[in-house]
């Protein structure tokens, strides 16, 4: 059974489970037990499976390890400690591995020193030995590997990938037969992705191979729902999850956060003023704090902020950037400096949001929306290292959608409404790898192997026919017998119902190609005329480009002409507006829960605002001027002001939000919410084309699916190719210059959609997209259909990409349900998009719980502006966008003033 533990144990109960040496060491080094430790010492000493959720700095490592160390020292004292692995620690972060190694080194040494004093004679006799620890990752040298084989450490620190290799190493497995504990750290970074799924299968295979039951301990920061994470950790025994105790100490740290707007009026203030004011704010916070950590949403944003701070306020080496494009050494340097407290400020994109120990941070500043409550809490939680300290943070926003988003997000954070994660279910590509791995271990009956696989939560409801289809695929059943020696990676006898190893290449293929992180491609951008190299873009970005699209690179604009392999040819563009935002591929999607809460907020605000504006519309004139004053920064009506005061925002922000809603109400007479989709037919004056804006605030994953579906239906009815622009707040459809979208067409398209099999419709729609090709390449790589590495030949990603296209076509020909294709669709529908929730949204439209309303506007309404200016920008990189926003805003104000 999976259950939360409500009551902590008393300190003496917890400390009593430790032997004298360990207890003494602990009490000498720590003044008290942290919240998670009050549960974990005893539970783990009883060999219970435990999931511990607790913020950084709450003594998580010790809470997991102390009881384990204690049991190992007990063995040592009893002269029973053998040279084998008793405990495996797995973390997705290599740098964390080194941290843990260092952190455990101290107690191991000190406790043993104390033991030696009393037990000299046993040491001489060789009865008492040291508890040892070792690290095994991709970086471990050959020499160390050999030593580990000969003298296995008692505690092995490793990564998911290295573990997968170790369980296929026969010699190493001999050392693991007596495994008692496995600790999975940073579980929030694993449970929601294929890397974690991969690990879960490794653990189940390991459990199947060792003698006794393995006690599983999971460590995570903020995540929700914890029951899911627990199931992910412990897996299933038959049809039911194994037992697990959940220790939820994730709220033991108090949050002190607010959203701030650098200026009162974000629209009419000049760029310079907004930037000046933002950096002044940041500087004031840095000056007032010992150390400040700033998060931006993109790597380029990080660089920009560091540059500006140094340039404007004459900072020197006391400010540093930390992001994933920097070299490992320079990142380690920054971490070291932070730990020592010798940095005043560090700026990071996502790389510092994870568990690496960075010492005491006094303040966290988040620039722009981090797009999810959980991430917001994780980031802000970096402040105040000890569990007693409050985590202090500021969110600085620079546009009004961002502001509303952050306001609601922080409110949700304070109310502990987290967005949920899901474990990818039945990922066939990851399973394909493990089937190959399993076949190398021994000969299996299908039933036996199927049962081991289903004991992982990620596969607990795996259909048998899917399992069989993978066996067929991996054994090369789809080619004639005479070619099977080439195609088959496993041997599989259908009649006998058994499979196993085939040939001598299967093992090197498994060892060299395992893992779930796809090779990333840097696409070279070249001028088509001179073939001069301009820079790199990411592959994902390339897949969005169509000939004629304009994008910025290194501060200049280029027109996309064509791509070949991993080269992209462009010409210089002489306009000032890109058609594709540069941050596109770095943008994080807004979570569904948060989108829903923002929708709720919009509904509440619209009650205050629409009532007011309607009344005042009636007697026009003077009242209109009153409202207009509010927009310009006057007094907010009491009830709205009271409502906004419930949120953690400053007064600038309050005015900005209220003004934003009033503008929308006055201009469009409709405010979209989570119960109302506003569909706005409008003209985009610069190009003169008619567009339809769907204000559907459901987050990008749903809007991605929804927009394709609507565009598909509308396109069919108009017999036109409809183009889409999509972000978290909605999407825009447009077609050629002369194309008009009659209300009837939109309505018909929606009602058609409500009756359609949307999964089928989407499949047809994405079958030929670059998205499909790219994801197929990843899945085919993970399924060992395309090999990155074969007999020592490393294959370029460009080659893989070309292969993937033809491979997809051929696989479709053989069987449209070929497991590799099936998995590609699954990944797109549940990871890139959120098909399940899209269906729910459509259900709610059908049942009338979500209504839609059609309006017509002469130019885009305020809530559509960021959509027209291409989704959310990184706030620090938005000059072009802002010029465009201002232009749109001017149109709105002109219309409001003239009384339309």
């Amino acid at each position, binding site marked *: 059974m999976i259950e939360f533990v409500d009551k902590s144990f008393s300190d003496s109960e917890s400390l009593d489970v430790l032997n004298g040496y360990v207890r003494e060491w602990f009490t000498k080094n720590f003044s008290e037990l942290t919240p998670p430790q009050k549960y974990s010492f005893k539970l783990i000493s009883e060999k219970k499976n435990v999931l511990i959720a607790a913020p950084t700095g709450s003594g998580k490592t010790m809470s997991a390890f102390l009881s384990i160390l204690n049991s190992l020292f007990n063995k040592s004292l009893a002269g029973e400690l053998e040279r084998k692995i008793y405990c495996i620690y797995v973390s997705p972060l290599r740098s964390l591995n080194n941290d843990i190694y260092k952190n455990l080194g101290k107690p191991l040494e000190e406790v043993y020193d104390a033991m030696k004093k009393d037990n000299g004679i046993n040491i001489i006799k060789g009865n008492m030995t040291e508890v040892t620890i070792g690290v095994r990752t991709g970086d471990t040298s050959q020499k160390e590997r050999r030593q580990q084989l000969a003298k296995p450490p008692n505690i092995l620190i490793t990564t998911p990938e290295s573990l997968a290799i170790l369980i296929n190493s026969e010699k190493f497995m001999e050392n693991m037969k007596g495994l008692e504990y496995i600790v999975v750290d940073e579980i929030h970074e694993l449970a929601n992705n294929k890397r974690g799924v991969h690990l879960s299968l490794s653990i189940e295979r390991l459990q199947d191979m060792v003698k006794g039951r393995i006690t599983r301990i999971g460590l995570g920061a903020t995540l929700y729902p914890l029951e899911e994470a627990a199931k992910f950790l412990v897996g299933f025994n038959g049809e039911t999850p194994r037992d697990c105790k959940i220790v939820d100490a994730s709220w033991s740290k108090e949050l002190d956060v607010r959203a701030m707007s650098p200026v009162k009026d974000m629209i009419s203030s000049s760029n310079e003023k907004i930037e000046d004011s933002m950096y002044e704010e940041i500087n004031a916070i840095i000056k007032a704090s010992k150390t400040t950590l700033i998060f931006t949403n993109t790597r380029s944003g990080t660089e920009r902020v560091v540059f500006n701070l140094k340039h404007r306020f004459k900072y020197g080496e006391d400010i540093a950037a930390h992001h994933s494009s920097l070299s490992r050494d320079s990142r380690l340097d920054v971490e070291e400096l932070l730990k020592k407290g010798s940095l005043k400020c560090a700026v990071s994109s996502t790389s510092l949001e994870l568990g690496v120990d960075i010492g005491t941070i006094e303040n966290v500043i988040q620039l722009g929306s981090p797009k999810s409550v959980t991430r917001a809490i994780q980031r802000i939680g970096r402040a105040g290292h000890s569990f007693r300290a409050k985590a202090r943070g500021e969110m600085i926003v620079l546009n009004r959608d961002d502001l509303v988003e952050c306001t609601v997000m922080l409110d949700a954070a304070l109310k502990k409404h987290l967005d949920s994660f899901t474990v990818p279910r039945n990922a066939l590509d990851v399973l394909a790898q493990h089937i190959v791995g399993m076949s190398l271990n021994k000969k299996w009956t299908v039933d036996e192997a199927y049962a081991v696989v289903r004991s992982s939560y990620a596969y607990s409801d795996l259909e048998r026919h899917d399992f069989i289809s993978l066996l067929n695929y991996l054994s*090369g059943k*789809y*080619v*004639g017998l*005479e*070619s099977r020696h*080439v*195609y088959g990676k496993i041997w599989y006898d259908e009649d006998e119902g058994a499979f196993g190893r085939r040939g001598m290449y299967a093992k090197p293929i498994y060892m060299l190609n395992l893992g779930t992180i796809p090779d990333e491609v840097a696409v070279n951008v070249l001028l*088509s005329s001179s073939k001069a190299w301009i820079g790199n873009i990411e592959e994902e970005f390339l*897949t*969005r480009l*169509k*000939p*004629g699209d304009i994008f910025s690179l290194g501060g200049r604009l280029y027109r996309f*002409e*064509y791509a*070949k392999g991993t080269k992209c*040819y462009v010409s210089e563009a002489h306009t000032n507006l890109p058609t594709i935002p540069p941050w596109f591929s770095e943008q994080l999607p807004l979570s569904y829960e948060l989108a829903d809460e923002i929708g709720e907020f919009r509904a509440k605000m619209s009650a205050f605002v629409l009532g007011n504006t309607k009344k005042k519309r009636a007697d026009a004139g003077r009242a209109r001027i009153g409202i207009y004053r509010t927009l310009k920064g006057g007094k907010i009506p009491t009830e709205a002001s009271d409502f906004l005061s419930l949120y953690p925002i400053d007064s600038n922000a309050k005015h900005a939000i209220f003004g934003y809603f009033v503008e929308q109400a006055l201009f469009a007479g409709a405010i979209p919410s989570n119960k109302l989709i506003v569909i706005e037919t409008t003209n985009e004056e610069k190009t003169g084309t008619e567009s339809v804006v769907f204000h559907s605030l459901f987050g990008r994953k749903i809007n991605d699916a929804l927009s*394709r579906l609507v*565009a598909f239906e509308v396109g069919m009815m108009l017999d036109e*190719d*409809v*183009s*889409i622009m999509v972000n978290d707040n909605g999407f825009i459809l447009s077609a050629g210059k002369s194309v008009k979208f009659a209300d009837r067409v939109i309505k018909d398209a929606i009602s058609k959609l409500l009756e359609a099999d949307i999964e089928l419709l989407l499949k047809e*729609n*994405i079958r*030929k*997209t*670059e*998205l499909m090709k790219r994801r197929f390449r990843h899945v*085919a790589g993970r399924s*060992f*259909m*395309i*090999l990155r590495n*074969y007999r020592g*030949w490393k*294959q370029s990603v460009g*080659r*893989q990409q*070309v*292969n993937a*296209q*033809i*491979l997809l*076509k*051929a*696989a479709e*020909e*053989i069987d449209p349900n070929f497991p590799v294709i099936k998995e590609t669709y699954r990944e797109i529908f549940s990871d890139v998009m959120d098909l399940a929730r899209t269906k729910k949204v459509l259900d709610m439209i059908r049942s009338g719980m979500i209504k839609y309303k059609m309006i017509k506007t002469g130019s885009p309404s305020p809530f559509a502006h960021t959509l027209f200016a291409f989704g959310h920008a990184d706030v620090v990189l938005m000059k072009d966008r802002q010029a465009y926003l201002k232009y749109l805003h001017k149109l709105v104000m002109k219309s409001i003033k003239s009384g339309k």
Partner: protein
Amino acid sequence: MRLTDDVELLDGLPIAYIRSINALAVADLHLGYEGVASKGIALLPKVNLSNIMKSISTAIKKTGANAVIVDGDIKNEFSRVDQEEFNELYDFIMFGKSERVSLILIKGNHDNFVERYKDSFKLKIYRQEADIGGYLFFHGEYLPENITKNTTMLVMGHEHPSIGVYNSIGSKERLRCFLYGKYMGVPLLILPAMNYFAGGTEMNSEPRSSLLSPIFKKADPNGMNAIVVGYGSTMDFGKVGKLRGLRA
């Protein structure tokens, strides 16, 4: 689609039929492709040969042709004859026999070692080019040499021509095509690849300088007609130059 009084491009097939010599012209089969790929880099399911046989068989039924001219690259590997490749080559020759057509091969750059099988299988093999009834067949990696005033048409392969069509939801489709134009005043027909996996050279986006065949140094691809094959039909899309930046 009728190209000239004597030449028919068969609907939906990458195959030309020449009435006066009662022969089908095809190019770039690259037999053995999957087997070779699967030993190295990617497990390609086998679909190429069966598709080719199906197409040729349909074409023979439609036209009553008694010869198939393979205008280069019947096989895939440069440096050796792979076992998988040999099996497919063998199957293809047997297929020709069962369809009662004679096979004529113009050697392409991938066709090393095929002469080994010349005698045992009674294959007709031309080293570089062949004039058959006024039609000058050559593969295309070299320029044609023996153009005379009696040459009715030049027929080549090698380039794997195709047209890329983008639509606005981010998808691109590549359609294989014939190219039809003139070289030194003589009509020139470039055959699309028969190979199932050949993505092809995107004629409407690739700059002239990066095309494979030296023929394009003299014949401007922009001035040639792209005759697209796919979805059961064959259709003239007009001049390649006009198709640049094409969006559907």
